[in-house]
């Protein structure tokens, strides 16, 4: 016979103002198996918890029902209290009479009636609860960081600092990411390269950090503490161990007309290339789409081989193949970053028609000393100095879904102020106009920075939006825009137009989310486990988020989040083993018909099939294909129990019979 204790919480007036808690306690005291039913002001307080502990001991309780807030809030609290009094924690059930009752009802009579029903359902369930014991699973002492921009670099450095091995998988030939392309950083205007490249060098020199450049994650199996990851090292046709990064191959390569992605296509590079001087690893890569030898073509081209002839280290290998390596990790950090959106939908700004209409990232390269013009700001079309520059804010940000991105890209207001200021500082004869909807500058020293652009550098901020850009024969660009404060339409004869283009997650993010079975929002940003309280953890255990892959952010914020993600990963890696959730699925092999329905719906890959020998009623043995659940991978979502047509799948702590008992109790 069960001996159940019921504890009804007032939650101050949160519950008690709408639910007659005394009446609830009284009503529930008559339920079968209930030996004690009490109410108290705050069950989660120490005194409240003691009430439960004392009752467990005094009444030798076999089950506890707490009628209080959502189990997300305090289920753990009450489970711990029960455990300390010697009761298995999984014999505690919560009836949520706050979020699902008192907060949403107004009348005391109906709310009270509902609270009683919810309590009754929990009692019916606890009657069938079985004690559960959480298992343990070992933790591999190695972390994987996907993406080698500033986010991935910072995360890797912090994890390595704590003494763990870290692998960085970067899809480009070098780490560094977008920050390597940026000229100066706001609000201090220090040179991006000067603060980034030392960190890149630290990565390459740290013996705990292993960089897989020009590589991708192609498969992930396993679970928190024990991920098995397949990494595809793309053929770069260069032996990394031999290449010294001397760059002679790039000098002799005859294919010199390859758009230079590092400079946003504003100049050309050779088919064999090192992206930039400070690249890490400083190793050349052959672009097979352009290499005469690899791409094929005329017979004369196919015999090229000039780089191989020139390479004294013998590093060139035209026969190199993609290589797959497998490694086990305890934790994975996603740091896949962002890209500016394509501007095809915004050609009222003439981006596709006029080379002197550029994106902000292109402007970074135009202004950078290592950029196409050696740091002198010149128009891409005719290499003349622009004397009138128009900046357009919010291009593709804050849009309707059909037009662009619904979110604010967050960094544009600040980098535009930076651009405007740098230009006015270096070229005082240049007029700079910024068309804005709002200027958004929350951040330390941010608004002061923007004000400096206006007050000290006399940048013309105009509240309004550009509506049409018309390139003209004389090389000028007619910018037609509204000036909302003076209520007029302006025409500015500009030399250069800069579009503050919205940013979006890198296109590798979505397929990666599928591989990692982790969640994304509709904009392809990774979803954090809790928007406030767990901002760097994904909803999938052991997978953490770093940088813009989680949402738009600037460099300081990215670095802060990168270190936070590292701390969370370290917190996992220091453990020798982790406690598993015992509320997992299990399969009744005798009922399983081997249909694979559960395997198909399982989002975690926790279900596998195997052939097993069974003894049949006629004493023969038969081999049948049956489902098995890996309890360390199962997250207890219950999808399989619903999908299973034969009722073989069941969930510990939420068994089919328990759910039915609850429903029966509610419908009584």
């Amino acid at each position, binding site marked *: 016979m069960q001996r159940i204790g019921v504890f009804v919480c007032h939650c101050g007036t949160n519950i008690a103002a709408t639910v007659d808690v005394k009446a609830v306690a009284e009503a529930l005291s008559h339920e079968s198996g209930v030996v004690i039913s009490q109410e108290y002001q705050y069950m989660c307080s120490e005194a409240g918890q003691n009430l439960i502990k004392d009752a467990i001991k005094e009444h030798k309780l076999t089950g506890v029902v707490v009628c209080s807030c959502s189990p997300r809030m305090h289920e753990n609290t009450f489970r711990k209290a029960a455990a300390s009094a010697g009761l298995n924690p999984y014999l505690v059930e919560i009836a949520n009479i706050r979020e699902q009752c008192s907060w949403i009802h107004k009348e005391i009579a109906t709310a009270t009636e509902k609270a009683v029903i919810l309590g009754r359902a929990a009692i019916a369930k606890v009657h069938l609860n079985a004690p559960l014991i959480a298992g343990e699973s070992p933790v591999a002492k190695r972390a994987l960081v996907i993406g080698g921009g500033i986010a991935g670099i910072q995360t890797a450095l912090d994890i390595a600092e704590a003494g763990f091995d870290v692998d960085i998988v970067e899809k480009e030939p070098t780490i560094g990411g977008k920050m390597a392309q940026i000229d100066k950083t706001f609000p201090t205007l220090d040179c991006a390269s000067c603060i980034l490249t030392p960190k890149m060098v630290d990565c390459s020199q740290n013996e705990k950090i292993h960089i897989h450049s020009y590589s991708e994650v192609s498969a992930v199996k396993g679970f928190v503490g024990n991920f098995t990851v397949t990494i595809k090292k793309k053929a770069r046709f260069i032996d990394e161990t031999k290449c010294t990064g001397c760059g002679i191959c790039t000098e002799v390569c005859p294919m010199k007309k390859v758009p230079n992605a590092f400079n946003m296509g504003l100049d050309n590079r050779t088919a064999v290339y090192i992206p930039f001087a400070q690249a890490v690893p400083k190793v050349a890569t052959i672009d097979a789409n352009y290499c005469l030898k690899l791409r094929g073509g005329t017979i004369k081209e196919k015999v090229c081989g000039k780089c191989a002839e020139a390479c004294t280290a013998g590093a060139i290998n035209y026969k190199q193949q993609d290589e797959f390596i497998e490694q086990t990790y305890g934790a994975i950090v996603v740091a896949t970053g962002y890209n500016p959106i394509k501007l095809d939908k915004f050609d009222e700004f003439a981006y596709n028609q006029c080379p002197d209409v550029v994106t902000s990232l292109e402007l970074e390269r135009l202004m950078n000393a290592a950029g196409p013009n050696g740091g002198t700001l010149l128009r891409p079309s005719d290499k003349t100095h622009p004397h009138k520059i128009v900046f357009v804010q919010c291009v593709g940000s804050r849009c309707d879904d059909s037009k662009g991105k619904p979110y604010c890209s967050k960094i544009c207001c600040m980098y535009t102020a930076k651009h405007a200021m740098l230009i006015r500082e270096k070229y005082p004869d240049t007029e700079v106009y910024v068309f804005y909807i709002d200027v958004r500058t929350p951040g330390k020293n941010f608004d002061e920075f923007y004000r400096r652009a206006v007050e000290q550098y006399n940048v013309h901020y105009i509240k309004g939006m550009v509506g049409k850009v018309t390139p003209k024969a004389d090389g000028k660009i007619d910018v037609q825009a*509204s000036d909302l404060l003076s209520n007029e*339409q302006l025409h500015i004869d500009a030399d250069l137009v800069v579009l503050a283009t919205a940013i979006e997650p890198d296109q590798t993010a979505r397929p990666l989310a599928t591989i990692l079975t982790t969640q994304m929002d509709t904009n392809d940003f990774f979803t954090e486990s809790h928007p406030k309280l767990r901002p760097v953890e994904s909803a999938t255990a052991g997978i953490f988020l770093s940088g813009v892959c989680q949402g738009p952010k600037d460099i300081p914020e990215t670095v802060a989040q990168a270190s936070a993600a590292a701390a969370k990963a370290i917190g996992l890696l220091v453990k020798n083993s982790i406690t598993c959730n015992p509320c997992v699925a299990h399969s009744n092999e005798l009922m399983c018909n081997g249909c694979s329905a559960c395997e198909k719906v399982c989002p975690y890959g926790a279900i596998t099939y195997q052939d097993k020998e069974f003894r049949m009623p006629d004493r023969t043995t038969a081999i049948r294909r049956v489902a098995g659940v890996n309890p360390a991978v199962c997250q207890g979502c219950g999808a399989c129990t619903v999908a299973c047509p034969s009722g073989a799948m069941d969930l510990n702590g939420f068994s089919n019979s328990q759910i039915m008992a609850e429903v029966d109790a509610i419908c009584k």
Partner: protein
Amino acid sequence: MNSNLKEQVLRSSGVNVLKCMRCGKCSGTCPSYDEMEYHPHQFVYMVEKGDIETLMKSESIYKCLTCFACVDRCPRSVEPAKVVEAVRLATIRQQGCNHLIADSIPEMLDEDLPQQAIVTAFRKYTK
């Protein structure tokens, strides 16, 4: 504020003026801006405020070319031209408020003017 008129304009245009984020791109792209006393973004804002009568009396309602540049380029799909159309209809549907009178047509004609112009102008300016 005349809430009946506002109601009518909202219903007739089918536009949700609350979607506007006041960026002014409609007015930045409008080819008739200089001819208008009230500009596309003001139409949207004044309708939101319920100040319809001012717009109804303004010549601006006859200056919109219905070229749909504002409709297509609005970042939030507010469709300002539909608001202008609804306000113009609210005016010309009133008795004696036709903007174009048939008798005045002959003097507007020249030998090349296509029928299309006359038909369209009638659609736009009269009821």
